[in-house]
């Protein structure tokens, strides 16, 4: 009887270990933020680029959809996505909020002068502290939110042509 218990315990233990390894190794260890989709963004506090007025939740609730784009003049991939942002600016139901991230004001202005300004509203996060509230860990990153400030999708890296189509279809629905 005891032998049977020990035997079945060992077998169960081996099955358990195999199970743990199987699930563990099949799981992607690359960090992504897809779990944040569906969450509501709260405590929005962003300093406007040109004056000290603060952009709050109330400002974003006025828009049907808002694409919050974190960018900097020193960020090379931001240049890649810039023409797509300019195209997105033409969408009626979408407002673009640019957050200039850890950048010098003059460089940021030169960047927009050279490449065009796609943003309906522009904010500044000099130390990057406010961006933590949006779950940002690098730039460029963009967050598409709806009127209720719920995250519809998070785009890590420059916005691609596929992302553009997705955003366009979502805001036109």
């Amino acid at each position, binding site marked *: 009887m*005891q032998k049977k*218990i*020990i035997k079945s*315990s060992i077998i169960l233990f081996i099955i358990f270990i195999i199970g743990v390894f199987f699930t563990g190794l099949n799981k992607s260890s690359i*960090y992504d*933020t897809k*779990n*944040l989709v569906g*969450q509501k963004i709260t405590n929005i506090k962003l300093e406007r680029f040109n004056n000290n007025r603060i952009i709050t939740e109330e400002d974003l609730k006025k828009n049907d959809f808002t694409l919050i784009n974190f960018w900097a003049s020193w960020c090379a991939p931001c240049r890649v996505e810039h023409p797509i942002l300019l195209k997105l600016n033409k969408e009626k139901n979408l407002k673009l909020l640019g957050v200039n991230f*850890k950048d010098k004001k003059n460089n940021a202005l030169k960047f927009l002068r050279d490449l065009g300004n796609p943003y309906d509203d522009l904010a500044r996060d000099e*130390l*990057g*502290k406010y*961006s*933590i*509230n*949006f*779950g940002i*860990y*690098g730039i460029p990153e963009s967050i598409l939110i709806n009127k209720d400030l719920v995250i519809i999708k998070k785009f890590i890296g420059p916005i691609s042509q596929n992302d553009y189509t997705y955003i366009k279809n979502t805001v036109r629905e």
Partner: protein
Amino acid sequence: MRLKTIIFFIILNLNIASAENFTLDLNKVLKNLRCLVCQGQSVADSNSEFAQTIKLVVKDQIKEGKSEKEIYNFLVEKYGEWIVYKPPLNKVNFVLWLFPYLVFVIGGVVIFLLLKKRNNH
């Protein structure tokens, strides 16, 4: 004069003690935070842009009087559980938490049964 010197040293001591306390708390929190853009480094060990920003935010939150748990909760809400090295007990990871205790109990039972068997012989 002597009294003034004593008071000066008491105040100096108090300041050093509170500064040490602040550093200790900050480091403790930062060591339990994973740097999401680094390879196997905590926020405390990393100098990446991300880690530097998180350090500033945690410092601010400690100054605001937030507890360690509140700081973790804030960051977990923003980045998911992956950001903390020691995730809180929940329905997804309860096996991980309970497994060592389970092994301990089962091991105890097995040893007890083996010893009992040996005594009977």
